[in-house]
């Protein structure tokens, strides 16, 4: 599994608070047994209403790597289809004011870092990218900075998930399964395991 230490690319500012996972991927697209069909459906209804003016449809943001969002992004449903749809569109990392917890966890399990910055700094970054969409953005998880053009901002991420990215253990499955003996020992101590 690969380490995630730094990511470089272009940004896409998506302005708005409390953008929920129903908006990221409407429920009708969850009728699937693989994630393959999600391609192209990210923000489908918002995009329809914006009639071509949604950032996901604007040509200057095509090929963007970073999604720059505001407060409580990814709230609501636990559907991993939401980050999966963003990833299929090309998003590799998110920078925002704050993230909903289940969404954040889903992103970690997929190897997509969600980092936070102060509200003013996120807004500055969104504006800087809107003015110069071709400008390169670089996210460094080792130094916890994001750089856009000449300017750098400090970012934050809890140390647990950060270490998982840096050490390449964000897909925890193998690590968890390797503790089989300890898992069985913990289970054996739980009274309810004997009742059913």
């Amino acid at each position, binding site marked *: 599994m690969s380490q995630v230490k730094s990511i470089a690319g272009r940004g896409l500012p998506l302005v*708005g*608070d*409390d953008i*929920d996972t*129903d*908006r990221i991927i*409407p*429920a*009708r697209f*969850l*009728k*699937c*047994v*693989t994630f393959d069909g999600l391609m192209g459906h990210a923000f489908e*209804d918002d995009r329809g*209403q914006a009639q071509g003016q949604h950032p996901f449809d604007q040509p200057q943001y095509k090929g963007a790597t970073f999604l720059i969002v*505001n*407060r409580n992004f990814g*709230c*609501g*449903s*636990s*559907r*991993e*289809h939401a*980050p999966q749809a963003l990833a299929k569109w090309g998003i590799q990392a998110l920078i925002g004011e*704050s993230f*909903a*917890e*289940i969404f954040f*966890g*889903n992103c970690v*399990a*997929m190897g997509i870092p969600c980092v936070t910055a102060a509200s003013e700094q996120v807004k500055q970054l969104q504006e800087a990218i809107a003015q110069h969409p071709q400008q390169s953005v670089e996210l460094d998880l080792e130094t916890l900075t994001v750089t856009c053009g000449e300017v750098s901002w400090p970012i934050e991420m*809890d*140390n*647990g*998930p950060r270490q*998982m990215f840096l*050490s390449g*253990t964000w*897909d*925890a*499955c193998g*690590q*968890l*399964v390797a*503790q089989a003996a*300890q*898992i069985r020992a*913990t*289970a054996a*101590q*739980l*009274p*309810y*395991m*004997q*009742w*059913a």
Partner: protein
Amino acid sequence: MSRGTLFDKVWDLHTVSTLPSGQTQLFIGLHLIHEVTSPQAFAMLRERGLPVMFPERTVATVDHIVPTENQARPFADPLAEEMMEELERNCKDYGIRFYNIGSGSQGIVHVIAPEQGLTQPGMTVACGDSHTSTHGAVGAIAFGIGTSQVRDVLASQTLALSKLKVRKIEVNGNLNLGVYAKDVILHIIRTLGVKGGVGYAYEFAGTTFDHMTMEERMTVCNMAIEGGARCGYVNPDEATFAYLKGRDFAPQGQAWDQAVNWWRSLRSDANAEYDDVVVFDAADIPPTVTWGITPGQGIAVDGVIPAPEDLPEGDRFVAQEAYQYMELQPGQPIKGTKVDVCFIGSCTNGRISDLREAAKIAQGRHVVEGIKAFVVPGSQRVKQQAELEGLDKIFREAGFEWREPGCSMCLAMNPDKLIGQQVSASSSNRNFKGRQGSSSGRTLLMSPAMVAAAAITGQVSDVRDLL
């Protein structure tokens, strides 16, 4: 850092190891799965050649995609049918207990698990669904997860998690007439905000919760996630034990006494330390309705849509978006807003006590012509009980449709959907843009009794006028 709370005790008891990242590897006592978020997880297991480590600790049902009118197989929707077949195959291949349609025990996952006594105090519970917080009502630590994490639980019965902080939310006193558990949680969310709970588990405490029935506690814990808290719980007490006793999976005989003793020991200590405490007075809670596009945009039923300047600065952006989407103006009363569809059901309010409260309002009255009103029991057992009590007859005579169990129009992954800009009075949990199946559909969240009141008056109405 919290200390001595139920959350701390259960967390410690289920800790398997500390991972190199510093996160906790937490054992999951009960894993619930359904057809939407599990197929990809099983595919990942197959890809990696991994078995299910504790198949007896996973239980499946089907709820999100099932039609609530015609449930004959194959389903009319081939995609829904494919998902059904996939779940049936996975449960068979891996030896997982499955409550299918026709089993007599199928229903919304968060209704059937407590109903059968599967969820118990002191357990950790995970499910690929954000409303898993519901199970905290019995004193379990329960949270929603995504599909990769469903894979992790199947493969190892554990999750990699960072410990949450604990906020005690104390509500004291008696609720006023016409105020239900739904109003309590809508009031808490509108006060603390939809992201107020991020990073926290919510412990619901105080005399108001002490006096609530288990089903009322489920309604409250169900919506903890709408306040940003991945997990909500109530300490187990005599009401919890009375609810559990005799249920299918509840311990029996000597094990029962052992269990009750263990459950009591898990309650938050009198001198427990919390990361935060918030106190509410039950008398301040009105019948509440949401007017906007987040569950935090709620107001008293006799209140008016707030003006931007009445809101904290951080909430104004979403308020502007909501005025436009909902076509509601600041200063306008919510009471009297015309509705098109009335939906009673969901994992929030699809239990027998919810149907009883709604039936009290519906009895002897009639749904206004042109309004579509329907009742979707949360499970086959709820449906059976309701029919035994004659609630189906009351609803039908009042002009409501009486349906088969499922998630229905809460998220509209099935034939139950809003059309165009229809306005729905809904007992469900989310009023997000497009949530109920139409990208311009509008949802007003309220208690089941208030939904019934809306159906028989054709508009948002104060349930107190009908009691």
